[in-house]
């Protein structure tokens, strides 16, 4: 068993970029939850961190939109956003191309993952890493699920992706940490920005913590769009991680809707022992 850490978190750009516009107590509690997640991550002493993300047209556009993609680069850079706007300085992150290649080869047996030898992180990865690996010294392997540009991959394939990724990580000798980042309900970058369906979020998180496959896969995209916004499509990342950590206890460590961050801010961890 080489999976040493697993967790989920939010990545909204407002979390860092608009932190001065939010209730200071909310900010302090959220940042404390991220710090706690970082302590657990560091205690697990990982060799590498796999990030299951839902990037937002930083690398993938409709000229060649993969349903799933894994990074295969020596190093990555980010954020693409204006550093002042996002509140995060530009930097580089070491990659782990050897392990990347083995994961890709393993995944290709049952999931048709694209691979990318270059990759610029957007807020979808840069915000979580800002809190979790502030020294930018832990090798990163980015993974992406298309949650932005329809036609989207169905939820059961996100589950299959998680299954295949979990199996590949388990077979690797490295100590692998994995996080998923996305959603949950939100209407970011629309006039509805700040709207959050807390009841929907709490129900989803209950299903996620229980690792309830049937209930996690029961959402249709039409329902998600209506009740959780287009940002809700990002539940695919949480679902993939749930499958990669089947049978392991999971807990929602923090949840708080913060409208100016345009999302119900979430931190959750899985007990991988």
């Amino acid at each position: 068993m080489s999976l040493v850490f697993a967790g989920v978190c939010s990545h909204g750009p407002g979390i860092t970029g608009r932190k001065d516009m939010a209730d200071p107590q909310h900010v302090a509690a959220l940042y404390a939850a991220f710090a706690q997640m970082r302590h657990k991550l560091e205690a697990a002493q990982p060799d590498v961190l796999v990030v299951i993300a839902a990037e937002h047209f930083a690398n993938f556009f409709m000229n060649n939109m993969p349903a799933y993609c894994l990074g295969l680069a020596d190093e990555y850079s980010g954020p693409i956003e204006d550093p002042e706007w996002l509140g995060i300085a530009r930097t580089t992150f070491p990659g782990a191309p050897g392990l990347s290649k083995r994961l890709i080869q393993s995944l290709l047996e049952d999931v048709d993952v694209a691979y990318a030898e270059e990759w610029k992180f957007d807020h979808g990865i840069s915000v979580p890493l800002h809190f979790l690996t502030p020294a930018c010294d832990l090798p990163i392997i980015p993974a992406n699920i298309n949650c932005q540009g329809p036609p989207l991959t169905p939820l059961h394939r996100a589950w299959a992706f998680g299954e295949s990724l979990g199996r590949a990580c388990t077979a690797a000798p490295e100590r692998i940490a994995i996080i998923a980042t996305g959603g949950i309900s939100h209407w970011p970058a629309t006039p509805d920005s700040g709207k959050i369906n807390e009841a929907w979020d709490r129900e989803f998180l209950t299903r996620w913590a229980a690792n309830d496959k049937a209930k996690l896969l029961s959402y249709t995209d039409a329902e998600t769009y209506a009740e959780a916004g287009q940002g809700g499509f990002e539940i695919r990342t949480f679902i993939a991680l749930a499958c990669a950590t089947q049978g392991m206890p999971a807990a929602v460590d923090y949840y708080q809707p913060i409208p100016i961050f345009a999302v119900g801010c979430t931190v959750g961890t899985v007990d991988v022992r």
Partner: protein
Amino acid sequence: MSLYGLQKLMYELNRDEALQSQYRADRDSILSNFKLDAEERQAIDDEDIGLLYILGVNGQILMHFAAMCGYAWPDYIQAMRDALQVHGNVRAGIYATTDGQGAI
């Protein structure tokens, strides 16, 4: 497929700081590479974020272009809300508003 070109222009600008500099120095040299109709071209020239939203530009693409055009966050959200009043709802894509009444 004109919306495709409009979005691709912003996609490439958003991820490439060198291209942003070139765009600021000589906009036409960039825009000539993308098929835009007259309304789209005007919206770009006017940096009319509200109209670009109505035309169907994906919010995750438009958000960064708005920042590049100097829009502060509340002004960016407000520009989209104002455009809904002027133009009606979004014409394409998945970024149509529900009620335009989110917080902030």
